[in-house]
């Protein structure tokens, strides 16, 4: 467990410093760090850093190119910037922005191999998944996807990549070693977000165009269920045996049982909720509300919104945006 007092002490010193330094200090001792969100603010062109225990914004990092997607490891945050045609890299220890990774095309969805490399980037324009070596900052390979790939997820063992191919209405299961598609499965209309369940058994494809979620079996790659949710859903997260889905136009979080797929409720979360991720222990989910410019924290037991904090303008936080989920497991590189 994290000794609470040490965090408090660290924070008490923060107001003395400004800007990047705040982030730098906050990330100076990762072993003592709690979970933190890195929220991409697309319109404001910044990344907000939010301490999730206290729901305080502890820093903001300028990031141009309309940042949208994000993938964090225990060491770095990779940010897709469609208008810059590049990936921004933030060193979580210092808060410093490292040199860009040029990708060309339209980088959107992004995920990192559990080993920390490579970084997988869905390229909206070339209809492929770019394999990026963050060390050399180069694209080393391209895996074929369907049309306009959006969401990307990697299995915990690093063997399988799943992409939501929005304009092909399908999900691709790609062998991480060979880059070969092991299966392309038709789902609902215009799948955008894709998430692998914490137990690695199921895949959730969130279908913007048909207002539902396709649940697939990770092993057999068969469709287990199609679950109706709210209007224009964006992404999903499983926590506490419940699946939470952001409904952009509904302004709601649809909740259904991860085992029975039965609807458990609808939470009025905010306007245009988009990116969503659960805490490591599954007690909370965090949701970026694009229109409101907020990050909301939801208790996965009571389904109440426990807190909402203002972040930047137009937060999307598309991908895994929470750092510090594997506290103490600081591998470095």
């Amino acid at each position, binding site marked *: 467990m994290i000794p609470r007092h040490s965090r408090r002490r660290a924070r008490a010193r923060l107001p003395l410093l400004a800007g990047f330094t705040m982030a730098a200090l906050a990330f100076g001792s990762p072993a003592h760090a709690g979970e933190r969100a890195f929220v991409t603010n697309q*319109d404001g062109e910044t990344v907000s850093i939010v301490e999730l225990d206290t729901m305080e914004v502890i820093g903001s990092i300028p990031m141009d190119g*309309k940042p949208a997607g994000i993938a964090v490891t225990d060491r770095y945050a990779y940010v897709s910037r*469609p208008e810059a045609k590049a990936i921004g890299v933030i060193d979580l220890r210092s808060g410093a922005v490292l040199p860009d990774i040029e990708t060309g095309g*339209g980088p959107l969805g992004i995920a990192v191999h559990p080993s920390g490399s490579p970084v997988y980037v869905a390229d909206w*324009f070339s209809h492929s998944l770019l394999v990026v070596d963050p060390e050399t900052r180069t694209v080393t390979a391209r895996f074929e996807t369907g049309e*306009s790939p959006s969401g990307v997820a990697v299995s915990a063992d690093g063997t399988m990549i799943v992409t939501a191919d929005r304009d092909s209405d399908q999900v691709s299961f790609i062998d991480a070693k060979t880059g070969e598609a092991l299966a392309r499965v038709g789902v609902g209309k215009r799948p955008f977000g894709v998430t692998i369940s914490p137990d690695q058994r199921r895949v959730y494809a969130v279908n913007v165009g048909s207002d539902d979620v396709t649940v697939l079996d990770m092993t057999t790659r068969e469709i287990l269920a199609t679950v109706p949710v709210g209007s224009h859903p964006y992404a999903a997260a499983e926590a506490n045996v419940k699946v939470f889905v952001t409904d952009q*136009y509904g302004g709601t979080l649809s909740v259904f049982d991860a085992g029975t797929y039965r609807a458990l409720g609808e939470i009025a979360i905010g*306007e245009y909720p988009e990116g969503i991720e659960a805490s490591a222990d599954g007690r909370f989910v965090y949701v970026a509300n694009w229109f409101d410019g907020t990050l909301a924290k939801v208790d996965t037991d009571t389904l109440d919104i426990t807190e909402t904090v203002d972040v930047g303008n137009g937060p999307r936080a598309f991908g895994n945006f929470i750092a510090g989920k594997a506290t103490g497991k600081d591998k470095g590189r």
Partner: protein
Amino acid sequence: MSRHLLSIAAAFVIVPSLAFAHGPTRQKTSESIEINAAPDKVWAVLGEFSDMSWHPQVTSVKATDGNNKGSIRTITYASGETMEEELSRYDADKMRFGTFIGQTNIKVIPATNYSSNVSVKPGDAEGTSEVTWSAAFYRGYPNNDPPAELNDEAAVTGVGTYITEGLDGLKKAVEAGS
């Protein structure tokens, strides 16, 4: 010959729209107005989905299913243009509703993929209301290098004007009638 040229022209028009890019980012705008009337009086006018007579640009409205979710209203404007708007949510208790326009008419609003939220809340002073109309949308031209009249800025300005004129008209209509 002329048919051949036409088909080339058509190809240029159609191809970019098929390649619906993620290039453009979603825009938003939100306007509020204070009205000298109680919220229920304002809602009685605004909450009627088949009536937009308060909007100065609108000449007539027909809705397929009243105030029920999924109802589609066809709006005819003074310019002669029309646009269809769907009721995507409706909450009379909270005095708010949401709409969606999948196929916008860019002669009415220079934007695409438009959705809106409209709400009535009690104003600061007793017996007054605050009406907020928010909208999210993409610019009128979906690809890179948009013409000036269909870029992000034009979309925000155009939708903003549409909303502001509507809110001003609503205020006039309600205050005249109360």
